[in-house]
């Protein structure tokens, strides 16, 4: 439920320090500190993209519900579900 409300108030929360990529600032580079999901398959999928603890990730752009990220010199357009699972510092 928490996630649902956070979506609705995403704009207001942007000024605070983001805890996941979902509310990260465009153009900023962050370090991934956790993959926040109980879905092992999703965690593994992110791992194969190079998204795991300690890696750097940049939010390049947000298009509609897609988050364009750059990780390990590669670009991906991930959806909101994946973005919200990537915990950042």
């Amino acid at each position, binding site marked *: *439920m*928490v*996630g*649902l409300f956070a979506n609705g108030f995403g704009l207001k929360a942007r000024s605070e320090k983001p805890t996941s990529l979902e509310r990260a600032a465009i*153009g900023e*580079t962050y370090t991934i500190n956790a993959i*926040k*999901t*109980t*879905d*092992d*398959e*999703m965690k*593994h*999928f992110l*791992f*194969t*993209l*190079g998204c*795991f603890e300690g890696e750097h990730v*940049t939010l*390049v*752009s947000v*298009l*509609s*519900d*897609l988050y*364009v990220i*750059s*990780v*390990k*010199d*590669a*670009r*991906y*357009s*991930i*959806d909101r*579900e*994946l973005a*919200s*699972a990537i915990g950042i510092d």
Partner: protein
Amino acid sequence: MKIALAGNPNSGKTTLFNALTGSQEKVGNWAGVTIEKKIGTLKSKFNPTKEDIAIVDLPGAYSMSPFTSEESITRAFVIEEHPDVIINIVDATNLNRSLFFTTQLLDLGIPVVVALNKTDLLTRDQTVLDVKSLKERMKCAFVKTVATKTQENGLDLLIKEAVAISGQKQETPFQVPSEALRAAQYDAKIAETQDRARYDFVKEVVRSVEKRQVENRRETIQDKVDRVVAHKWLGIPIFGVVMWLVFSVSQTYLGPFLADTFVGWIDAFYSMVENAMGDSVSPLLSSLLLDGVIGGVGAVVGFLPLIMVLFFMLALLEDCGYMARVAVVMDRFLKRVGLSGKSIIPMVIGTGCAIPGIMATRTIKNERQRRTTAMLTPFMPCGAKLPVIALFSGAFFSDAAWVGTTMYFMGIALIVFGAMIVVRITGEKNKRTYFIMELPEYRFPSIKRAALSMLDRAKAFIIKAGTIILLCNALVQIMQTFNWQFQVVEEGMESTSILASIASPFAVLLIPLGFGAWQLAAAAITGFIAKENVVGTLAVVYGITNFIDPDALELVGGGGSVAEIMGLTSAAALAYLVFNLFTPPCFAAIGAMNAEMENKKWLFGGIAFQLGTGYVTAFIVYQVGTLLTTGSVGTGFIPGIIVVGLMIAAVITLMRRGDRMTVPKPEAHLA
């Protein structure tokens, strides 16, 4: 000899496969799974040997770790196919990511050649790559390629290298002891530790061989364009304007101009045949040939120029990368109403033809989402519906481009609305899915590719007109010529014909929708065989040889003859168009729905839902339209509102029942 192609999605694998094999691919299915495999024969100009070389395209994957199901599939594919050589296509602009998969491929022991693809982008970004030391560190062959170029693309060198190393033993640069590998198969933790070490190894290799000037995390011009074109809200009106432009050009300007000439030829052909037959042929046979075959097929084929212009423009939009952005904008709505993020793919394909669209739903894992998508995909106006749209916007709305544009948006709206209803009925709330989208880069659209795509679709259109449409029109002509005693129907007694007596009961049901004539009902029925039949049948039953007037430079319209003959008001005409577009598409599509849904309850539910949607939307369009234009409701309002009310009540009951079935589940997803 057999060469397998393996690589990450978006590495240019498909382009390379097509460049190596030409287009003569065979599509088969991998045993047990529904992912298709492509096999082709290497073009002889690349082949340095005398024997045939088979190229097998493996499914794109980001890695081959043994832990998740789909990735072990890739591993199993490689083992099952036992190729002599593996060509690993790697996007040279992100080695850090792609070489991970390469190290896993090298572990298999099959000789590997790495195609360093997209090397032209390296030059553009001034990235310097030390290929020699890359070879040494990775212990395998590397060949620079640019698969998108037709000349000097490095492909012949790639194949030479592949042939040279076949039969050799492949060394591996990142040795994992076999007992550790085996342990990793049963323990995710161990597997992850190994994979991290693998990533670290790759990082170290890349650091020593690559000198980068530009970081790819910067925002490019493409990103800036995307921020506007694929914007949450702005994206929708932009798409509206683009579609409106497409319809204006194809239907108001260029299309009718071409159609005019073309229809002139069809008319000339009609008169030529008519004159050649003279009075010596029995009127039965001559009217079958003239009105049934030439008139009916000609009416449909007359729209070919219009449709070709439309196809061409849509192909240009797809080729330049715009359609993918539309998908990004629309996808948000689909996900919000409980469909999968992948549901957008079948719908995009469905604008060409619903059948491949429905077949594409099989990549959706969740059963409910797959079935719902298969059920709603046919609401996208497919190629066969375009002549119907063209006819009605031409004959009743003087070629207004808003008609076609509105039909696309209405299709999308009905899909979103339908998905909302189905989610409530099935009582299964959103299963969370996740995905990544590979957005193609914008590029200048190729006229040649668009022209080829247009010709391909035009050919299909002509084939359909010459086979199914021709037979249906002949049948319609025969059925309206004879009555049940197989006597020729006399003039003034048309309603006694076989066709009229079959169609009349249905026509009664259509009175509240504004088009209760048996002719219109008959055309709607033949439309279930193929939607173009609506146009053909109308031509035959109303004895109209063509819908496009060759004398004036426009479609017959603006209160012109076609509208008069059919006796429809604009509101009724729009309702008839909506009814034909949003009822079940055609029997072939229903067959495809059956195959993908694998459940009779869903199939019949889906057909009933589509019929209901067509009826209700047509009713609303006619009654509201009539109210707005004349100030009072149309004929048959009371019986119509009862039928529509019953349908809505049934849907609401089902939705209520679905709600009760749902047990509110705590969201397990976010910890």
